[in-house]
């Protein structure tokens, strides 16, 4: 199972890097979604997988101590999913607004702010 998950994480990372290198900003956004998902999967995998073991130990701790599921990786993933969702929705809006303002989705053409004398409005 670990091997399968490791390969999945690797392949997802490769796909997301490919998408991130694209000129089209929507594909970049998909790359970000995918890379944050694969990082979550990575945390899940390196946190060790346990089969059929309780996360919380009852009144007879001695009985279960040999095998119990570590709840921490899940807690970490939960946190990073929440943060990732917020950030991805922000970037989706940002890219949409940038598209409305500049009229392009091509990141190569978004160079005006670097070449022109861009001064902030008050």
């Amino acid at each position, binding site marked *: 199972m670990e091997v399968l998950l490791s390969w999945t994480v690797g392949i997802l990372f490769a796909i997301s890097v490919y998408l991130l290198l694209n000129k089209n*900003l929507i594909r970049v956004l998909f790359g*970000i979604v995918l890379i944050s998902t694969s990082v979550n999967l990575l945390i899940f995998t*390196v*946190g060790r997988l346990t089969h059929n073991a309780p996360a919380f130990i009852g009144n007879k701790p001695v009985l279960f101590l040999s095998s119990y599921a570590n709840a921490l990786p899940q807690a970490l993933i939960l946190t990073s999913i929440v943060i990732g969702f917020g*950030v991805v929705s*922000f*970037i989706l809006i940002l890219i949409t607004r940038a598209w409305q303002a500049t009229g392009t989705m091509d990141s190569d053409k978004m160079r005006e*702010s670097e070449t022109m004398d861009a001064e*902030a*409005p008050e």
Partner: protein
Amino acid sequence: MNNIILLPLLIPLLGAILQFCFLRGVRVQRWLNLATCSLLLVSAIVLIFLVLKQQYIVLQVGGWRAPFGITLIADILAAIMVLLTAIVGFCVAIYSFSDIGLRNVRVGFYPAYNVLLFGLCGAFLTGDLFNLYVWFEVVLISSFILLVLSGGKFQLEAAVKYAVLNLIATLLLLSAIAFLYGITGTLNMADLALQVQDSHAPGLITVVAVLFIVAFSMKGAAFPLFFWLPASYHTTTYSSSAIFAGLLSKLGVYALIRVITLIFLVNSPYLHFIIAVLAGLTLLTGIMGAITHHQPRRVLSYSLISHIGFILVGLAISTPMALLAAIFYLIQHVVVKTGLFLSAGLIHYYQKSGFRCLYFSKPIFSVMFFILILSLSGIPPFSGFWPKLLLIESAIAAGQITLLVIMILVSLLTLYVMVRLWIQYFQVKQTQASFVYQVVERKSMLLSVAVLVGLALVIGLLPSLCYHLAKLTELQLLHPENYVHAVLKRTV
């Protein structure tokens, strides 16, 4: 008594909540923000005095014992960074009175600004690696908001680059944290320091360390991955760009210093070599970028990158004196760079009001700007000179001749770039505007620049003050076992 460590977190958070309640009241928000920042400054000063007395202030949040819960810890480095955050936050709060227009206040500049300060203080004070990632995200999201607040075409364009590249950096950081957790099974920095030393796989640890270096150097705008910085800093409001330049890029460097001196002590010559290469290239590419640009904030952004290189040189050489110099440099650079970015705003407004040749029309401001550029380039009595002297001495002692040559070259080129700005805006008799058509008195902006210039002068003329502070910090950084003991309450 240890609860005092929570004050720099709670004050900006409460400030942000209060300001949200008065989103329409522009004046209320401005004064509330100033009050918040003054309180933050007071609490930061109290914190640093307490830390100097007790060495470490540790708080286990929720009473969970150390490796299990989240630890907040203030050592001297963290306390210095919180104090710098408070000082810069206070100056920018004054500055924003005339810089931030009504519209930006109504769409929530001040709450976002306070959340940014909150995130910065949290990142400096945390003793937990995953918690550090969360604070990085808090800082990141609030900086997104500050960046796009004006909603213009250029801001949106710059924000896309800033957001995407920074997000990839935090995701790299998260995967590095995941790997480290997989190897050691802990996230508490003090516990990590122990576990990494006892680890059976030093090779794997080194790989993870390099991943951390990549993530933090991307955050701190070091050599190959700094392109988000000059693409975005010059588009936003002057207040935001000043706080970004002063503190945000230092956050990456701070985190790098923290993990390198505390956790990754195995196989460190290899890591130091990587950092040395990054530092040298950062110094050179940054200053080359500064030479090719003319707009003040673009020039300052690139010179900011090259000066990150100076701090990295200190970390790379990593002798006691070099670390001391790096911390000294960090302190003075935050003050001077913020001052310069705020002055860029003043230059812009004076130009817009029709003033040309500022040396004759605005003599006081000119003197202040001149002191700042001399401090940045490191001319003897001013603040940049002392840490550079220490860095050069330690480079000679360590036999790092290449770095030495690069540092001296970059110092000279910084002087050239800054003097060019000076000539361009202060001395050249441009075609005089026939009349001054819009006299705007920007007293609050001038005041905040004056505060920072005063601080830079104090650092420069009384170098022993900062030297001793940096010396104490360096002693703490070189004895991570005390840090571990303070958190875990057991001897190593």
